[in-house]
């Protein structure tokens, strides 16, 4: 008997196409999970039960009449509450947005609706995506722990079965961090591949939109639906080749960079061990492991901060002057401090970014992809403020979670997290695969090669 909850997005899509599964059943399964878990987990800002049921009936009818639209047709999907949906509020999980109502859809909303996906609701985030913990939401794998952020509600919803996939945003790890902490796949595509039109910004030159899903294949299907040039987003680019997310998994001769520095510094032992086991798995499939030195390692986070704090401060320049008390304390503090940042600091970061990307381009001329841990530690307790490393060093939870993800935002490269192993507490560990700009399909291909033996087992 087909149990919808056990199906991946791809499997559910295939069952719907074969008319072995109805979108109505799938949506009811999602809504039941939401009813069971939402009181404790709080992943959703709003759930659109009536419209989801109506769209499911329409999808069922269309498919019965031969109007099947593709892999997402009839699949329940959730949106981080930064994506505009016409006629509805985009809250950004902030009181500052009280009374907001979007007049048009985001490009991603349009793309999902065209694909026949059923939007079940919008997910909580760390306020305005400016944080890595999403404090109002709990991790379904252990409710005493953070789901990560800023797309924490999106990851939590997918993890407990409230949606078969979700769209998030990533400015310094906000897709990959919660996906890793919730045992999911999260993909930040190349900068410019997915339109940000209609998404509330955090930092224009670092913001990306991308999928969170249960498998790499599922993330690829979501990416395929939402990727594409959009003149309304000034960063949008036409990729040099069509996006082939279902590339065959052969890895013979693929050069996989394994960093000697930075990515394994101050990383918990089980997390580092998982990344090295994932590398061995690729090697057994024909890949060649290449030890590499990460260039400009001491300047990656400094550049990220210079860009993000300054751009976020400008995004919020009016609201922080008019409504500061409506922000949460952590976000308010960063935005107020950001108002006082000299323009020279921002320019310094912009110039450093060019230097960094040149050095990283040279690095990626020697390798095809790079494999690293996604985050240095698994899910922290909700009230935990710091990690303590083996050498006695303290690091704030937020700074630790952003540290290994942010470089791919600074240089715009595609970066995928795939769950691979668990720590001694049974918490999931994510490994990260980065690739060359617009080589997103290869990154997904490598992710599948890491993941597939797990799925088969």
């Amino acid at each position, binding site marked *: 008997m087909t149990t919808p909850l056990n199906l991946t997005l791809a499997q559910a899509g295939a069952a719907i196409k074969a008319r072995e599964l109805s979108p109505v059943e799938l949506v009811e399964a999602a809504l039941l999970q939401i009813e069971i878990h939402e009181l404790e987990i709080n992943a959703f800002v709003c759930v659109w039960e009536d419209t989801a049921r109506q769209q499911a009936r329409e999808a069922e009818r269309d498919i019965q009449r031969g109007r099947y639209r593709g892999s997402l047709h009839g699949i329940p999907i959730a949106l981080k509450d930064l994506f505009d949906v016409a006629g509805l509020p985009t809250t950004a999980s902030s009181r500052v947005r009280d009374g907001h109502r979007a007049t048009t859809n985001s490009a991603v909303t349009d793309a999902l609706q065209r694909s026949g996906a059923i939007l079940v609701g919008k997910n909580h985030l760390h306020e305005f995506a400016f944080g890595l913990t999403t404090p109002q939401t709990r991790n379904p794998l252990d409710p005493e722990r953070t789901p990560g952020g800023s797309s924490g509600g999106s990851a939590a919803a997918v993890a407990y079965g409230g949606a078969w996939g979700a769209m998030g945003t990533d400015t310094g790890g906000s897709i990959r961090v919660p996906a890793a902490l919730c045992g999911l796949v999260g993909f930040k595509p190349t900068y410019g591949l997915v339109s940000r039109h209609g998404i509330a910004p955090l930092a224009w030159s670092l913001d990306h939109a991308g999928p969170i899903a249960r498998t790499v294949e599922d993330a690829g299907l979501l990416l395929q639906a939402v990727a594409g040039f959009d003149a309304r987003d000034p960063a949008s680019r036409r990729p040099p080749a069509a996006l082939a997310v279902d590339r065959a998994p052969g890895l013979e001769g693929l050069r996989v960079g394994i960093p000697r520095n930075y990515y394994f510094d101050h990383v918990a032992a089980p997390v580092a061990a998982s990344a090295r086991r994932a590398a061995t798995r690729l090697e057994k499939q024909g890949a060649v492991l290449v030890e590499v030195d990460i260039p400009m390692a001491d*300047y990656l986070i400094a550049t990220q901060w*210079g860009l993000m704090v300054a751009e976020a401060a400008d995004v919020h320049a009016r609201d922080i002057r008019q409504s500061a008390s409506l922000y949460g304390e952590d976000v308010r503090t960063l935005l107020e401090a950001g108002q006082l*940042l000299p323009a020279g600091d921002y320019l310094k970061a912009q110039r*450093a970014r060019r230097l960094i*990307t040149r050095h990283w381009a040279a690095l990626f001329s020697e390798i095809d992809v790079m494999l690293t841990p996604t985050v240095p530690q698994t899910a922290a307790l909700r009230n935990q403020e710091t990690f303590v490393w083996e050498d006695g060093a303290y690091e704030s939870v937020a700074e630790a979670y952003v540290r290994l993800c942010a470089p791919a935002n600074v240089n715009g*490269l595609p970066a995928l997290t795939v769950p691979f192993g668990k720590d001694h507490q049974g918490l999931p560990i994510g490994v990260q695969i980065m690739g060359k700009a617009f080589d997103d399909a290869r990154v997904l291909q490598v992710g599948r090669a890491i993941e597939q033996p797990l799925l088969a087992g």
Partner: protein
Amino acid sequence: MTIEKADAMTPEQTLALAASLGLPLAEERAPHIAGVLHHIRSVIARLDELPIEYICPPSFAFNAQQENAS
């Protein structure tokens, strides 16, 4: 190479700067904001070690493909 040292501002300097920029900052928040700003500026100040004076104009139209072409 010019190394810019990011000195911490006093709460009074922070309040004055905020006022000059039209940012209404409560007096009791000034010490905290001064500390956070100093931390942020200290991190960014690491970039002063880089040889970026001559060879790297800022890239406002950031293009991942162009920057990472190999």
